[in-house]
């Protein structure tokens, strides 16, 4: 079963962000989307998540799926603590014990165990982002959308979260779409990397990344090849 977008279009007033945009994505894969700032990546995720409706075109495969969406901004409730913000989205889905367990697990994972009772305004930028990550990961969903998830984190933290994320993914193999500007990130996580053109966003090309996760490092020649291939594609002005 696959996810499909059939020539979707979205315009804000006279600004065409998406025009007859179509794409097809197999599920249970991590698919990465890269593209210039202002291309329409967030708009695309918003459409996939149903946050906004396309002006034209249709989606298939999304309807019956539960979706978790890590927005580009943390979007935390200012009057709720770290814990409460995560519980907020879990409460309706599971028993008290279950969500307590989940909250514990994910707050630890993002390294905020000491800040569980802090309010968002008391957190640093990166910490807010981590709360959003914990919330998105903790939420049970078939489809996980992430918009620049590991932005604003230091390299080590980023790396450890990427590893943690991959282990989690191993267990359930959810379908994942994520947007990033960090090519390394893309290559580390993406089984497939879709490169978008500038507005109105079209698919410039995509790159398959068959390398198993644990072999994705610069020492691997194959990996380097793909990396160069990607950089080529990104830099190349036309397709």
């Amino acid at each position, binding site marked *: 079963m696959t996810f499909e977008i059939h020539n979707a279009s979205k315009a804000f007033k006279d600004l065409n962000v998406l025009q007859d945009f179509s794409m097809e994505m197999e599920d249970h894969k991590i698919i990465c989307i890269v593209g210039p700032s202002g291309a329409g990546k967030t708009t695309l995720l918003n459409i996939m998540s149903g*946050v906004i409706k396309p002006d034209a075109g249709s989606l298939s495969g999304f309807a019956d799926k539960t979706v978790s969406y890590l927005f580009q901004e943390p979007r935390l409730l200012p009057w709720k603590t770290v814990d409460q913000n995560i519980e907020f989205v879990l409460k309706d889905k599971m028993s008290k014990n279950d969500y307590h367990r989940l909250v514990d697990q994910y707050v630890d994972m993002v390294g905020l165990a000491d800040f569980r009772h802090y309010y968002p305004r008391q957190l640093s930028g990166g910490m807010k982002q981590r709360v959003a990550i914990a919330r998105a990961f903790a939420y049970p969903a078939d489809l996980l959308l992430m918009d620049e998830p590991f932005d604003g984190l230091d390299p080590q933290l980023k790396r450890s979260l990427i590893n943690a994320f991959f282990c989690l993914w191993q267990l359930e193999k959810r379908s994942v779409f994520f947007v990033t500007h960090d090519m390394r990130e893309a290559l580390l996580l993406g089984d497939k990397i879709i490169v978008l053109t500038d507005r109105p966003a079209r698919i410039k090309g995509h790159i398959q990344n068959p390398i198993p996760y644990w072999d994705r490092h610069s020492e691997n020649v194959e990996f380097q090849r793909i990396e160069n291939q990607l950089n080529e594609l990104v830099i190349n002005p036309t397709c």
Partner: protein
Amino acid sequence: MNSSTTKTFFITLGSVLFLFAVWEIGAHYVGQEILLPSPQKTFIHLISIFVSPSFWSTIGATIARGIMGFAISLVIAVFLGLVAGFYRPFFWLLQPWVTVIKTTPVMSIVILAIIWFETDAVPVFVAFLIIFPIIYGNVVMGIRNVDRPLLEMARMYKVKTRRIVIELFTPSIMPYLLAGVSTAMGLTWKVIIAAEILSQPSFAIGTELMKGKINFETANVFAWTVVAIMISFIFESFIQFLEIRLNRWGSSL
């Protein structure tokens, strides 16, 4: 905090004293006790009021009306406000009614009110006609200004509407609600008393005030006014306190 609270206490105190000074001077300037009695005069009458046997039943009755009028207005205003803020068509549906409630002069309907409610309830009704629109207006505006991205997030995560209302809307409208509430709380007493003067319940500050007026005991009138203001002040400080409590998370600190 503690030092700052004592500071504010002294500022307020000073301001109150200044208020009395102005009153004192005004009284001297007017020079007619029947028009504007001096603070001392008023204070003497205040004492005699305090000790009078019917004092507590009188202010008790008025406070009861105030709380009732306020509570009813609050509940209805918040409820309708939430719905109207949520759902535009409903707002437009209510609009004419709200305008009528806001604008209709009490005089036009007071006799109907006296016939429909018994005299004890009339002030509650009249208060509603003023308090409801204030709180309603603020709640609606509060909801319109809820942070959309947060709302999208909650909807995205399929949070139950009931919880969205309680955990997302209610906190975001709090500042608006508080603004409305703290204003309305003060006005309640003014309105209740005005209505009591019209409907003359047997126990009421308004009734006492009117007695004072027809006897030209202006000092008495002012004494009762002071009582009303003290009541108002107590309730408002309570709301101030509430406001600080509710903003612990700090949006407005």
